[in-house]
């Protein structure tokens, strides 16, 4: 029953490399069906457009946010023709914004709203930037999945 993988992770990375003018910050295949790519935040929309056109139909599974301390890392989990493609872009804290990919990938609409809620990374050009899971009276500037407060609390606990 196993369907053959139409594009392997290595092939996929090669094709993106050919298309992309800049230098990829990361390009590795952790298995035949798992590719990891890193690009500067400014180029995410461009790469997303290329992925969508190169292996239609492409499915966007979700967008993960990770707080790395100095930056918010965003991971776009695509599935292109039976191969998982994880596109990574790190948004430095203080910048806190990135171009939306909704015009290119309509499926990103909910996931980008979740990132805005949880990490406070503004999606520039998002068609519907309302809150998704947080209540309307949630304080402005408080982002539940940011790790800033953990560092502060740890300090408070030590001092106490």
């Amino acid at each position, binding site marked *: 029953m196993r369907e053959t993988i139409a594009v392997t992770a290595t092939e996929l990375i090669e094709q993106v490399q050919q298309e992309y003018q800049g230098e990829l910050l990361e390009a590795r295949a*952790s298995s035949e069906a*798992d590719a990891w790519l890193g690009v500067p935040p400014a180029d995410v929309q461009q790469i997303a457009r290329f992925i969508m056109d190169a292996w239609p139909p492409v499915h966007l599974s979700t967008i993960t946010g990770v707080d790395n301390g100095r930056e918010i890392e965003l991971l776009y989990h695509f599935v292109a023709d039976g191969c998982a493609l994880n596109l990574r872009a790190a948004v430095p804290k203080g910048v806190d914004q990135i171009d939306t990919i909704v015009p290119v990938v309509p499926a990103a609409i909910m996931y980008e709203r979740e990132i805005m809620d949880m990490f406070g990374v503004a999606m520039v050009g998002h068609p519907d930037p309302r809150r998704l899971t947080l209540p309307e009276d949630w304080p402005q500037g408080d982002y*539940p999945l940011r790790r800033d407060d953990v560092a502060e609390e740890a300090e408070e606990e030590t001092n106490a």
Partner: protein
Amino acid sequence: MPKLSFPVGPQHPALKEPENLRFTVDGELVVDADIRIGYVHRSIERSCSERNYVQDLYLCERVCGICSNAHTLCYCMAVEKIADVEIPERAQWIRMIMHEFERIHSHLLWLGVAGYEIGFDTLFMYVWRDREVVQDLLEMVSGSRGHYAMPILGGVRYDITPEMETKIREGVAILRQRTEHYADIATTEATFIMRTQDVGAVSGERCRQLGAVGPVLRASGVDWDIRTVFPYLKYDQVQWQVRSSELCDVLGRTLVRVQEVIDACDIITQALDQMPEGEIQAKFPRKVPEGEATARVEAQRGELIYYVRSDGSDVPARVKIRTPTLANLPASIEMVTGGYVADIPIAFASIDPCFSCTDRMVVLDDLRSGDSRQMTWAELVKLGRGR
């Protein structure tokens, strides 16, 4: 006639879970819809990075009461991928049997709810009676009807004994026969067809664009199932096929689900035939090496994805969960738009929404004073650790 906008919910607009829908209607026609979620957000993702890998197993199981097994399975798969632990053959087969048991119970539960939403309560009662068969089997194998706690890091908790095997074969035969009867009702019963045909329609192309998954996507003619896109467990060693329908409506979604129950029965029987004897647990390290991984499974509602990152300690640095209902929400809004007000419940219920899954924050209301108070993270941590 002026357009009218009104809220439905947050109390139980479809299934017994809270979410808020806002509909704009022109007479009997729905012209616009909007959805507000977050009423049952429980900060599970954040809590996962405050607990160790074993504790998270229990936490992830509690993301959802219906697809609990899919969550633990997906979590285990992601963590095992980082730790590079191969689980024993027999454990993989048992995981697959549990995965399909859960599909049966969930799809039958949905079919009952669908019957209830269209005022066909007889169907609801019969289906839920038959669903008890699979509930009993789940209880027999795992000791529980709800949270089975079967997948553990490195394998499964309990083995399937030869006595259990006999009972499973008997139970699955009854379920298969009864589900064929429901497939017959769904295709021949006039009342059922009238309430489901052309209701909640959305095209396959639109589903693709909006990122819909699972039976919603397949009922719009797209053969996309994680079990074949990224074969996991033993799905490549049993005979089955991805079920789809070109109907694009509630009827199509019903047919896909009913057929998947029949297929699940066959998969379980084949698994019992092929399952080798052997160990069911592999040794799993307490600390997981540095790394990251994604895992996807086809839960009963569609693609479920977990992303786990490890920093080399016994506590994950990040666990991200995306449940199928969130992926299906944009499509569900399109389903109700353009339809009749009377069709809202069934059209909305046809994605089999699960909001405990989708939300995962705590706002406490003081009922006596009517004040709403928000707990700080520090207070929450104190509350959690004090217990």
